[in-house]
Protein backbone atom coordinates (compact mmCIF):
# COMPACT_ATOMS: atom_id res chain seq x y z
CA UNK A 1 0.00 0.00 0.00
CA UNK A 2 1.32 3.41 -0.98
CA UNK A 3 0.17 5.33 2.04
CA UNK A 4 0.13 2.72 4.75
CA UNK A 5 0.68 5.14 7.62
CA UNK A 6 -2.35 7.21 6.68
CA UNK A 7 -4.43 4.06 6.28
CA UNK A 8 -3.41 2.76 9.70
CA UNK A 9 -3.91 6.18 11.21
CA UNK A 10 -7.50 6.36 9.96
CA UNK A 11 -8.24 2.86 11.22
CA UNK A 12 -6.84 3.79 14.61
CA UNK A 13 -9.35 6.62 14.86
CA UNK A 14 -12.29 4.78 13.34
CA UNK A 15 -11.92 1.57 15.36
CA UNK A 16 -12.49 3.48 18.60
CA UNK A 17 -15.82 4.71 17.28
CA UNK A 18 -16.71 1.33 15.80
CA UNK A 19 -16.19 -0.64 19.00
CA UNK A 20 -17.72 1.99 21.27
CA UNK A 21 -20.66 2.28 18.87
CA UNK A 22 -21.14 -1.48 19.08
CA UNK A 23 -21.02 -1.35 22.89
CA UNK A 24 -23.59 1.42 23.05
CA UNK A 25 -25.71 -0.36 20.45
CA UNK A 26 -25.92 -3.36 22.80
CA UNK A 27 -28.17 -1.22 24.98
CA UNK A 28 -30.81 -0.96 22.25
CA UNK A 29 -33.99 -2.05 24.03
CA UNK A 30 -32.04 -2.60 27.29
CA UNK A 31 -31.42 0.94 28.52
CA UNK A 32 -32.43 1.80 32.08
CA UNK A 33 -35.20 4.09 30.82
CA UNK A 34 -36.69 4.89 27.44
CA UNK A 35 -34.92 8.26 27.18
CA UNK A 36 -31.50 6.94 28.07
CA UNK A 37 -32.00 3.90 25.85
CA UNK A 38 -32.71 6.22 22.92
CA UNK A 39 -29.81 8.47 23.85
CA UNK A 40 -27.32 5.59 24.01
CA UNK A 41 -28.43 4.20 20.66
CA UNK A 42 -28.38 7.70 19.14
CA UNK A 43 -24.78 8.02 20.26
CA UNK A 44 -24.12 4.61 18.75
CA UNK A 45 -25.67 5.76 15.46
CA UNK A 46 -23.54 8.92 15.42
CA UNK A 47 -20.42 6.85 15.99
CA UNK A 48 -21.26 4.34 13.25
CA UNK A 49 -21.96 7.21 10.86
CA UNK A 50 -18.57 8.65 11.65
CA UNK A 51 -16.95 5.25 11.15
CA UNK A 52 -18.48 5.06 7.67
CA UNK A 53 -16.90 8.38 6.69
CA UNK A 54 -13.50 7.21 7.92
CA UNK A 55 -13.71 3.75 6.35
CA UNK A 56 -14.94 5.12 3.02
CA UNK A 57 -11.82 7.26 2.98
CA UNK A 58 -9.67 4.29 4.03
CA UNK A 59 -10.97 2.20 1.11
CA UNK A 60 -9.83 4.93 -1.29
CA UNK A 61 -6.36 4.88 0.23
CA UNK A 62 -6.14 1.09 0.29
CA UNK A 63 -7.41 0.94 -3.31
CA UNK A 64 -7.45 -2.85 -3.22
CA UNK A 65 -11.14 -3.34 -3.91
CA UNK A 66 -12.11 -3.82 -0.27
CA UNK A 67 -15.33 -2.08 0.75
CA UNK A 68 -16.03 -0.19 3.97
CA UNK A 69 -17.93 -3.25 5.19
CA UNK A 70 -14.92 -5.49 4.52
CA UNK A 71 -12.76 -3.22 6.65
CA UNK A 72 -15.34 -3.14 9.43
CA UNK A 73 -16.29 -6.81 9.44
CA UNK A 74 -13.52 -8.96 8.08
CA UNK A 75 -10.44 -8.23 10.13
CA UNK A 76 -9.03 -10.48 12.83
CA UNK A 77 -8.94 -9.40 16.45
CA UNK A 78 -5.32 -8.24 16.38
CA UNK A 79 -5.97 -6.05 13.36
CA UNK A 80 -8.35 -3.83 15.34
CA UNK A 81 -6.51 -0.83 16.75
CA UNK A 82 -9.05 0.58 19.20
CA UNK A 83 -8.00 1.57 22.71
CA UNK A 84 -8.84 -0.87 25.50
CA UNK A 85 -11.18 1.65 27.13
CA UNK A 86 -13.90 1.43 24.49
CA UNK A 87 -14.15 -2.36 24.57
CA UNK A 88 -14.88 -2.52 28.30
CA UNK A 89 -18.29 -4.08 29.00
CA UNK A 90 -21.59 -2.43 29.98
CA UNK A 91 -21.24 -3.84 33.51
CA UNK A 92 -23.91 -1.49 34.79
CA UNK A 93 -25.12 1.96 33.80
CA UNK A 94 -22.34 3.63 35.80
CA UNK A 95 -19.72 1.73 33.75
CA UNK A 96 -21.51 2.52 30.49
CA UNK A 97 -21.58 6.22 31.29
CA UNK A 98 -18.14 6.26 32.90
CA UNK A 99 -16.61 4.71 29.78
CA UNK A 100 -18.50 7.13 27.56
CA UNK A 101 -17.43 10.13 29.63
CA UNK A 102 -13.75 9.14 29.78
CA UNK A 103 -13.77 8.65 26.02
CA UNK A 104 -15.95 11.66 25.05
CA UNK A 105 -13.71 14.23 26.72
CA UNK A 106 -10.75 12.80 24.83
CA UNK A 107 -12.71 12.40 21.59
CA UNK A 108 -13.90 16.01 21.59
CA UNK A 109 -10.41 17.40 22.23
CA UNK A 110 -9.00 15.09 19.55
CA UNK A 111 -11.54 16.14 16.91
CA UNK A 112 -11.00 19.83 17.62
CA UNK A 113 -7.35 19.29 16.73
CA UNK A 114 -8.11 17.06 13.76
CA UNK A 115 -10.13 19.92 12.27
CA UNK A 116 -6.78 21.60 11.65
CA UNK A 117 -5.40 18.61 9.72
CA UNK A 118 -3.74 19.38 6.41
CA UNK A 119 -5.61 16.38 5.02
CA UNK A 120 -8.83 17.98 3.76
CA UNK A 121 -10.94 14.83 4.00
CA UNK A 122 -9.94 14.23 7.61
CA UNK A 123 -10.56 17.85 8.56
CA UNK A 124 -13.98 17.73 6.86
CA UNK A 125 -14.91 14.57 8.78
CA UNK A 126 -13.68 16.17 12.00
CA UNK A 127 -15.74 19.31 11.31
CA UNK A 128 -18.80 17.14 11.00
CA UNK A 129 -18.09 14.86 13.97
CA UNK A 130 -17.12 17.56 16.45
CA UNK A 131 -20.68 18.89 16.52
CA UNK A 132 -22.08 15.47 17.31
CA UNK A 133 -19.47 14.57 19.88
CA UNK A 134 -19.99 17.80 21.80
CA UNK A 135 -23.50 16.51 22.45
CA UNK A 136 -22.12 13.15 23.58
CA UNK A 137 -19.73 14.83 26.01
CA UNK A 138 -22.48 16.98 27.43
CA UNK A 139 -24.77 13.97 27.88
CA UNK A 140 -22.18 11.79 29.60
CA UNK A 141 -20.82 14.64 31.78
CA UNK A 142 -24.36 15.44 32.95
CA UNK A 143 -24.90 11.83 33.94
CA UNK A 144 -21.61 11.61 35.83
CA UNK A 145 -22.76 14.57 37.90
CA UNK A 146 -26.26 13.22 38.36
CA UNK A 147 -25.13 9.79 39.51
CA UNK A 148 -22.06 10.99 41.42
CA UNK A 149 -23.99 13.63 43.30
CA UNK A 150 -27.06 11.40 43.60
CA UNK A 151 -27.94 8.74 46.14
CA UNK A 152 -25.39 6.85 48.24
CA UNK A 153 -25.81 3.86 45.98
CA UNK A 154 -25.46 5.75 42.69
CA UNK A 155 -22.41 7.56 44.05
CA UNK A 156 -20.77 4.33 45.11
CA UNK A 157 -21.40 2.66 41.75
CA UNK A 158 -20.21 5.70 39.80
CA UNK A 159 -17.04 5.92 41.86
CA UNK A 160 -16.35 2.22 41.42
CA UNK A 161 -16.79 2.49 37.65
CA UNK A 162 -14.46 5.49 37.38
CA UNK A 163 -11.85 3.77 39.57
CA UNK A 164 -11.95 0.62 37.44
CA UNK A 165 -11.93 2.37 34.07
CA UNK A 166 -9.19 4.79 35.09
CA UNK A 167 -6.52 2.24 34.20
CA UNK A 168 -7.50 2.53 30.53
CA UNK A 169 -7.23 6.32 30.22
CA UNK A 170 -3.48 6.70 29.79
CA UNK A 171 -3.45 4.66 26.59
CA UNK A 172 -5.49 7.38 24.85
CA UNK A 173 -2.30 9.45 24.78
CA UNK A 174 0.11 6.81 23.50
CA UNK A 175 1.47 7.31 20.01
CA UNK A 176 1.74 4.58 17.40
CA UNK A 177 4.24 4.65 14.54
CA UNK A 178 1.42 5.76 12.24
CA UNK A 179 0.58 8.56 14.69
CA UNK A 180 4.13 9.85 14.72
CA UNK A 181 4.41 9.75 10.93
CA UNK A 182 1.11 11.59 10.51
CA UNK A 183 1.95 14.23 13.11
CA UNK A 184 5.22 14.88 11.26
CA UNK A 185 3.26 15.45 8.05
CA UNK A 186 0.78 17.84 9.70
CA UNK A 187 -2.04 15.38 9.08
CA UNK A 188 -2.35 13.77 12.48
CA UNK A 189 -3.02 15.01 15.99
CA UNK A 190 -0.25 14.90 18.57
CA UNK A 191 -2.23 13.16 21.32
CA UNK A 192 0.54 13.57 23.88
CA UNK A 193 -0.29 17.27 23.94
CA UNK A 194 -3.92 16.60 24.85
CA UNK A 195 -3.12 14.73 28.03
CA UNK A 196 -2.76 17.47 30.67
CA UNK A 197 -5.88 19.27 29.61
CA UNK A 198 -7.79 15.98 29.48
CA UNK A 199 -7.07 15.10 33.10
CA UNK A 200 -7.85 18.68 34.10
CA UNK A 201 -11.27 18.56 32.44
CA UNK A 202 -12.04 15.09 33.77
CA UNK A 203 -11.10 16.19 37.30
CA UNK A 204 -13.35 19.25 37.08
CA UNK A 205 -16.40 17.17 36.23
CA UNK A 206 -15.58 14.53 38.84
CA UNK A 207 -15.20 17.17 41.51
CA UNK A 208 -18.48 18.76 40.53
CA UNK A 209 -19.98 15.29 40.78
CA UNK A 210 -18.53 15.02 44.32
CA UNK A 211 -16.47 12.03 43.18
CA UNK A 212 -12.83 11.30 43.98
CA UNK A 213 -10.29 11.66 41.20
CA UNK A 214 -8.49 8.30 41.19
CA UNK A 215 -4.84 8.59 42.12
CA UNK A 216 -3.73 5.29 40.64
CA UNK A 217 -0.73 5.46 38.33
CA UNK A 218 -1.14 1.88 37.15
CA UNK A 219 -2.30 1.88 33.56
CA UNK A 220 -3.19 -0.74 30.95
CA UNK A 221 -2.16 -0.56 27.31
CA UNK A 222 -2.05 -2.69 24.19
CA UNK A 223 -5.17 -1.93 22.16
CA UNK A 224 -3.41 0.41 19.79
CA UNK A 225 -1.00 -2.43 18.98
CA UNK A 226 -3.84 -4.91 18.57
CA UNK A 227 -3.32 -6.61 21.92
CA UNK A 228 -6.78 -6.52 23.44
CA UNK A 229 -8.62 -7.54 26.57
CA UNK A 230 -10.69 -10.71 26.26
CA UNK A 231 -13.80 -8.60 25.71
CA UNK A 232 -12.97 -7.68 22.12
CA UNK A 233 -13.26 -11.28 20.91
CA UNK A 234 -16.84 -11.44 22.14
CA UNK A 235 -17.69 -8.09 20.57
CA UNK A 236 -16.30 -9.23 17.21
CA UNK A 237 -18.11 -12.56 17.43
CA UNK A 238 -21.35 -10.60 17.48
CA UNK A 239 -20.29 -7.80 15.13
CA UNK A 240 -18.99 -10.17 12.48
CA UNK A 241 -21.57 -12.90 12.90
CA UNK A 242 -23.44 -12.40 9.63
CA UNK A 243 -20.30 -12.09 7.49
CA UNK A 244 -18.75 -15.16 9.09
CA UNK A 245 -21.90 -17.27 8.88
CA UNK A 246 -22.88 -16.14 5.38
CA UNK A 247 -19.70 -14.96 3.64
CA UNK A 248 -20.17 -12.04 1.22
CA UNK A 249 -23.81 -11.57 2.10
CA UNK A 250 -25.22 -8.13 1.35
CA UNK A 251 -28.31 -6.35 2.63
Amino acid at each position, binding site marked *: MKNENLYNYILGIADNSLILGQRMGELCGHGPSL*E*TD*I*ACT*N*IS*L*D*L*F*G*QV*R*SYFQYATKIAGDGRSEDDIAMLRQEREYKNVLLVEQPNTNFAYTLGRQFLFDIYHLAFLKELQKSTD*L*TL*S*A*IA*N*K*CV*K*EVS*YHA*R*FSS*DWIKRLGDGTDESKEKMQEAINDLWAYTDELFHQTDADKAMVAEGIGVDVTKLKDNYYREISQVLEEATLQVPGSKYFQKGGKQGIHTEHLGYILAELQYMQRAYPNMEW
Partner: protein
Amino acid sequence: MTSTEQNIDERLLSILEQVSDPEIPVLSIMDMGVVRSAVIENGEVKVEITPTYSGCPAMDVIGDDIKKALKDAGYDSEIDLILHPAWTTDWVTSRGRKALEDYGIAAPLDAEADKDVLLNNKRIVKCTNCGSQNTRLVSQFGSTACKAQFQCDDCQEPFDYFKCLK
Protein backbone atom coordinates in the same frame (compact mmCIF):
# COMPACT_ATOMS: atom_id res chain seq x y z
CA MET B 1 -17.83 22.61 -4.25
CA THR B 2 -16.68 24.01 -0.97
CA SER B 3 -18.65 27.23 -0.65
CA THR B 4 -21.61 27.56 1.69
CA GLU B 5 -23.69 28.81 -1.25
CA GLN B 6 -26.07 26.45 -2.95
CA ASN B 7 -25.72 25.96 -6.66
CA ILE B 8 -29.03 24.72 -8.01
CA ASP B 9 -30.04 24.79 -11.67
CA GLU B 10 -33.43 26.55 -11.81
CA ARG B 11 -34.85 23.90 -14.11
CA LEU B 12 -34.33 21.30 -11.36
CA LEU B 13 -35.66 23.30 -8.45
CA SER B 14 -39.32 22.34 -8.73
CA ILE B 15 -38.39 18.66 -9.11
CA LEU B 16 -36.14 18.64 -6.05
CA GLU B 17 -38.72 20.48 -3.98
CA GLN B 18 -41.03 17.52 -4.45
CA VAL B 19 -38.63 15.24 -2.57
CA SER B 20 -39.28 15.16 1.16
CA ASP B 21 -37.24 14.10 4.17
CA PRO B 22 -38.33 10.50 4.84
CA GLU B 23 -38.25 11.05 8.60
CA ILE B 24 -40.02 14.43 8.53
CA PRO B 25 -42.33 14.11 5.53
CA VAL B 26 -43.61 17.71 5.76
CA LEU B 27 -40.14 19.01 5.06
CA SER B 28 -38.77 19.21 1.53
CA ILE B 29 -35.09 18.36 1.19
CA MET B 30 -34.62 21.82 -0.32
CA ASP B 31 -36.02 23.48 2.81
CA MET B 32 -33.82 21.19 4.85
CA GLY B 33 -30.72 22.50 3.06
CA VAL B 34 -29.21 19.09 2.38
CA VAL B 35 -28.96 19.63 -1.39
CA ARG B 36 -25.83 21.70 -1.97
CA SER B 37 -25.69 21.62 -5.72
CA ALA B 38 -27.62 20.28 -8.69
CA VAL B 39 -26.31 20.94 -12.17
CA ILE B 40 -26.97 19.53 -15.62
CA GLU B 41 -23.87 18.31 -17.41
CA ASN B 42 -24.16 16.66 -20.84
CA GLY B 43 -27.78 15.79 -20.19
CA GLU B 44 -27.03 14.16 -16.85
CA VAL B 45 -27.80 15.72 -13.50
CA LYS B 46 -25.10 15.82 -10.85
CA VAL B 47 -26.42 16.31 -7.35
CA GLU B 48 -24.40 16.89 -4.19
CA ILE B 49 -26.08 16.24 -0.88
CA THR B 50 -24.69 16.58 2.63
CA PRO B 51 -25.84 14.66 5.71
CA THR B 52 -27.45 16.43 8.66
CA TYR B 53 -25.76 13.91 10.98
CA SER B 54 -23.00 11.45 10.11
CA GLY B 55 -25.18 8.50 11.00
CA CYS B 56 -28.36 9.85 9.43
CA PRO B 57 -30.01 6.70 8.06
CA ALA B 58 -32.18 8.82 5.78
CA MET B 59 -29.33 9.82 3.47
CA ASP B 60 -29.43 6.68 1.32
CA VAL B 61 -33.20 6.99 0.99
CA ILE B 62 -32.93 10.68 0.12
CA GLY B 63 -30.40 9.82 -2.59
CA ASP B 64 -32.72 7.17 -4.03
CA ASP B 65 -35.73 9.50 -3.87
CA ILE B 66 -33.84 12.25 -5.71
CA LYS B 67 -32.78 9.79 -8.41
CA LYS B 68 -36.36 8.62 -8.83
CA ALA B 69 -37.84 12.14 -8.95
CA LEU B 70 -35.28 13.18 -11.56
CA LYS B 71 -35.86 9.99 -13.55
CA ASP B 72 -39.61 10.69 -13.60
CA ALA B 73 -38.79 14.13 -15.00
CA GLY B 74 -36.61 12.56 -17.68
CA TYR B 75 -33.14 13.06 -16.21
CA ASP B 76 -30.48 10.49 -15.40
CA SER B 77 -28.56 11.49 -12.32
CA GLU B 78 -25.54 10.89 -10.17
CA ILE B 79 -25.66 11.58 -6.43
CA ASP B 80 -22.55 12.49 -4.44
CA LEU B 81 -22.39 12.68 -0.70
CA ILE B 82 -20.18 15.54 0.43
CA LEU B 83 -19.04 16.33 3.98
CA HIS B 84 -17.61 19.77 3.52
CA PRO B 85 -18.83 22.29 4.44
CA ALA B 86 -20.66 20.57 7.28
CA TRP B 87 -24.43 21.01 7.40
CA THR B 88 -25.78 23.52 9.86
CA THR B 89 -29.31 24.28 11.01
CA ASP B 90 -28.83 27.76 9.49
CA TRP B 91 -29.51 26.11 6.16
CA VAL B 92 -33.06 25.20 7.12
CA THR B 93 -35.19 27.80 5.28
CA SER B 94 -37.86 29.91 6.99
CA ARG B 95 -40.48 27.89 5.11
CA GLY B 96 -38.81 24.75 6.49
CA ARG B 97 -38.87 26.11 10.03
CA LYS B 98 -42.56 26.84 9.74
CA ALA B 99 -43.23 23.35 8.38
CA LEU B 100 -41.38 21.89 11.38
CA GLU B 101 -43.38 23.96 13.86
CA ASP B 102 -46.68 23.06 12.18
CA TYR B 103 -45.69 19.42 12.34
CA GLY B 104 -45.09 19.64 16.09
CA ILE B 105 -41.30 19.84 16.11
CA ALA B 106 -39.76 22.93 17.72
CA ALA B 107 -37.46 24.56 15.16
CA PRO B 108 -33.78 25.10 15.98
CA LEU B 109 -33.18 28.32 17.88
CA ASP B 110 -31.13 31.26 16.63
CA ALA B 111 -27.45 31.87 17.23
CA GLU B 112 -28.00 33.76 20.51
CA ALA B 113 -29.86 30.85 22.03
CA ASP B 114 -27.19 28.54 20.74
CA LYS B 115 -24.60 30.51 22.64
CA ASP B 116 -26.70 30.01 25.75
CA VAL B 117 -26.57 26.28 25.16
CA LEU B 118 -22.80 26.38 24.89
CA LEU B 119 -22.52 28.41 28.06
CA ASN B 120 -24.87 26.04 29.84
CA ASN B 121 -27.44 28.80 30.31
CA LYS B 122 -31.09 27.93 30.10
CA ARG B 123 -32.57 28.09 26.66
CA ILE B 124 -36.21 28.63 26.00
CA VAL B 125 -37.86 26.25 23.62
CA LYS B 126 -41.52 27.09 23.13
CA CYS B 127 -44.05 24.30 23.42
CA THR B 128 -45.29 23.39 19.95
CA ASN B 129 -48.70 22.52 21.38
CA CYS B 130 -49.63 25.52 23.55
CA GLY B 131 -46.79 27.99 22.97
CA SER B 132 -45.80 28.07 26.64
CA GLN B 133 -42.20 28.88 27.53
CA ASN B 134 -42.45 26.74 30.63
CA THR B 135 -40.71 23.75 29.08
CA ARG B 136 -37.86 21.51 30.09
CA LEU B 137 -35.32 19.26 28.45
CA VAL B 138 -36.10 15.58 28.99
CA SER B 139 -33.21 14.17 26.99
CA GLN B 140 -30.46 15.51 24.72
CA PHE B 141 -31.40 12.80 22.28
CA GLY B 142 -34.82 12.36 20.71
CA SER B 143 -36.55 10.04 18.26
CA THR B 144 -33.86 10.70 15.66
CA ALA B 145 -30.25 11.86 15.95
CA CYS B 146 -31.19 15.42 14.94
CA LYS B 147 -33.74 15.96 17.69
CA ALA B 148 -33.90 16.39 21.47
CA GLN B 149 -36.87 15.61 23.69
CA PHE B 150 -38.69 18.33 25.60
CA GLN B 151 -41.79 18.42 27.71
CA CYS B 152 -44.15 21.30 28.41
CA ASP B 153 -44.85 21.83 32.11
CA ASP B 154 -48.08 23.69 31.36
CA CYS B 155 -49.93 21.41 28.96
CA GLN B 156 -47.72 18.35 29.74
CA GLU B 157 -47.24 17.65 26.05
CA PRO B 158 -43.93 15.99 25.18
CA PHE B 159 -42.41 17.24 21.93
CA ASP B 160 -39.29 17.09 19.79
CA TYR B 161 -36.86 19.96 19.42
CA PHE B 162 -34.72 20.10 16.30
CA LYS B 163 -31.23 20.52 17.72
CA CYS B 164 -29.20 23.51 16.71
CA LEU B 165 -26.04 22.56 14.83
CA LYS B 166 -23.59 25.30 13.96
